[in-house]
């Protein structure tokens, strides 16, 4: 069966000692009329655990079995940093972050995108074919990172999927410019925001309940790099990443880049869909002490993401012999900005060595950096990587400002290295 597929389940317990197989059979066994503990107490409308759990055994469709699965209901999985070494993130290694169930039985020929809203001059509906034939195609490499990437390090802990490092990727996206489509419909001068609607289904199965509907200010929507995309690296989008159509806003929380896109509303107010308000994808307007209860009205929406970098080579745990030098490399990105400088430290941040840093292939694409490291004597080292953005902001060496939902942890990535 599929124990291999789930070898990296985050709690490490299910697969431990090869139990995945047994658990799978269990789920089947459980269906065949066995007693459910406290079954009589289940509130009405809550299904007992059953076939759904079998999904977890099959791995994530079209994704590498080396992704770290944080949750299978809904699917959420991140990529270990060393698997992000490619300059262009392969589709099977691009992270998965879902709020609801992936839509089933997608008929591409019937898929439409409707543009509407208070600030739309008209309501227009396009088929996928319309979009592909009516507008100019663009292919851009855009960095997409979950706003909660790094959440696992915050203390007191924030609830939610405990992302560590790999909820980020930079594949090539192909589609049309959002602004071309919006202009084709007509945008009124009072437009403030765009909000998306997708076809993902609420976990409770209610098809009328919107899972997540976020968006961006009209200014970001009208940028040259804001895309309505149907392809990743020249292929159809993976089902898990929004097939057949999605938005892509590089450098902003990935939750702004709506998946399974079928409607965009041009709003005359800041969009107010589910996950726009409260504490979702928001941080305090002012710095707060860890654990502070922050009223909702004191929270602001996250826009451009902070400067950040990853060491994608070597994988943590490298042992080198003697004075052998080795290459250290990775990527760096900085929200709407670019990365100006890249440094690494092998002495826990005391001294920093400047790295070679390339330019982005296009705006909002991550940049590649590399350097050569030699370890002065036998012992335990950590390589720390620190990027500096075009405004001079740097990655902090400790976890940055605490916030109630654990967003925007851009602390330096650290790997362990030994010389022996």
């Amino acid at each position: 069966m599929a124990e291999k597929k789930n070898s990296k389940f985050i709690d490490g317990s299910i697969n431990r000692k090869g139990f995945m197989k047994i658990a799978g059979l269990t789920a089947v066994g459980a269906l065949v009329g066995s007693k459910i503990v406290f079954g009589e107490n289940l509130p009405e409308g809550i299904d007992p655990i059953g076939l759904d759990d079998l999904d977890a055994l099959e791995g994530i469709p079209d994704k590498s079995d080396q992704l770290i699965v944080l949750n299978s209901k809904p699917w959420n999985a991140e990529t270990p940093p060393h698997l992000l070494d490619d300059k262009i993130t392969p589709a099977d290694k691009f992270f998965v972050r879902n709020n609801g169930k992936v839509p089933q039985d997608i008929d591409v020929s019937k898929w439409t995108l409707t543009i509407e809203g208070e600030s739309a001059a008209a309501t227009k509906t396009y088929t996928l074919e319309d979009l592909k034939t009516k507008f100019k195609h663009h292919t851009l490499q855009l960095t997409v990172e979950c706003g909660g990437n790094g959440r696992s390090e915050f203390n007191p802990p924030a609830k939610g999927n405990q992302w560590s490092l790999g909820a980020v990727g930079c594949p090539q996206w192909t589609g049309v410019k959002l602004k071309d489509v919006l202009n084709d419909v007509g945008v009124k001068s009072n437009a403030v925001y765009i909000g998306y609607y997708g076809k993902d289904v609420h976990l409770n199965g209610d098809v009328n309940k919107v899972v997540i509907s976020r968006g961006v200010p009209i200014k970001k929507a009208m940028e040259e790099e804001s895309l309505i995309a149907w392809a990743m690296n020249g292929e159809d989008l993976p089902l898990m990443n929004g097939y057949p159509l999605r938005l892509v806003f590089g450098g902003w929380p990935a939750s702004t880049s709506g998946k399974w896109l079928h409607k965009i509303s041009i709003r005359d107010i800041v969009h107010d869909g589910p996950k726009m308000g409260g504490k979702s994808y928001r941080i305090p307007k002012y710095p707060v002490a860890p654990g502070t209860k922050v009223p909702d009205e004191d929270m602001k929406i996250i826009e451009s993401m902070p400067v950040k970098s990853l060491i994608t080579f070597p994988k943590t745990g490298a042992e080198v012999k003697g004075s052998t030098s080795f290459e250290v490399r990775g990527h760096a990105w900085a929200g709407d900005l670019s990365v100006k400088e890249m440094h690494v430290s092998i002495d826990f941040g005391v001294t920093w060595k400047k790295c070679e840093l390339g330019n982005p292939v296009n705006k909002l694409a991550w940049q590649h950096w590399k350097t050569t490291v030699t370890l002065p004597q036998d012992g335990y080292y950590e390589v720390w990587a620190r990027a500096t953005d075009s405004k001079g902001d740097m990655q902090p060496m400790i976890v940055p400002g605490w916030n109630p939902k654990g967003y925007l942890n851009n602390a330096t990535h650290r790997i362990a290295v030994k010389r022996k």
Partner: protein
Amino acid sequence: MEEQDQLPEDKSQLIARLIRSFNMLKVIFWFVLGLLVLIWADPDFIHDEYWEARNVEIQIGVEGDLDMRDSVFNGIHVMSGLVAEGDYKLVFEFCGSCHNHALVTQNRATKDGWKEIIVWMQEKQEMQDLGEYEEPILTYLSTYYAPKEGGRRPPLNQDEIDWYELKPNQ
């Protein structure tokens, strides 16, 4: 003649016996080697839980009706990954009916914190009232999934590092 005949017969019997005991030794040798290989390949092989689980697996395979909901290994509830102590079965049923248990096991909060999470799910995700089960569920969660004390950035977890030799010119 007779004596002359007997002697080689004794010899051949002796040889046959030697071959038999040598064969026996070979069998024992291979058996022990096999056992060692098995233990090397899967150290849990010698634990009772392994065999219990194997039996369950076999029975499910044959009859298809055995419930694994009660199976616990190394103190962890196999199906959910929950710490198999206290009222974990309540958490298993009530939480797992809507989302994966990993969403429980990867989180840490105080009793108030877990209460907030439940209220949030009730307000935003249409979760039902837990009634009399809320208290034992909160107690379980805040006991086994309590916040860990830690600084602003903990050291790299040395237990999670999988050391390997970095070959030159990679």
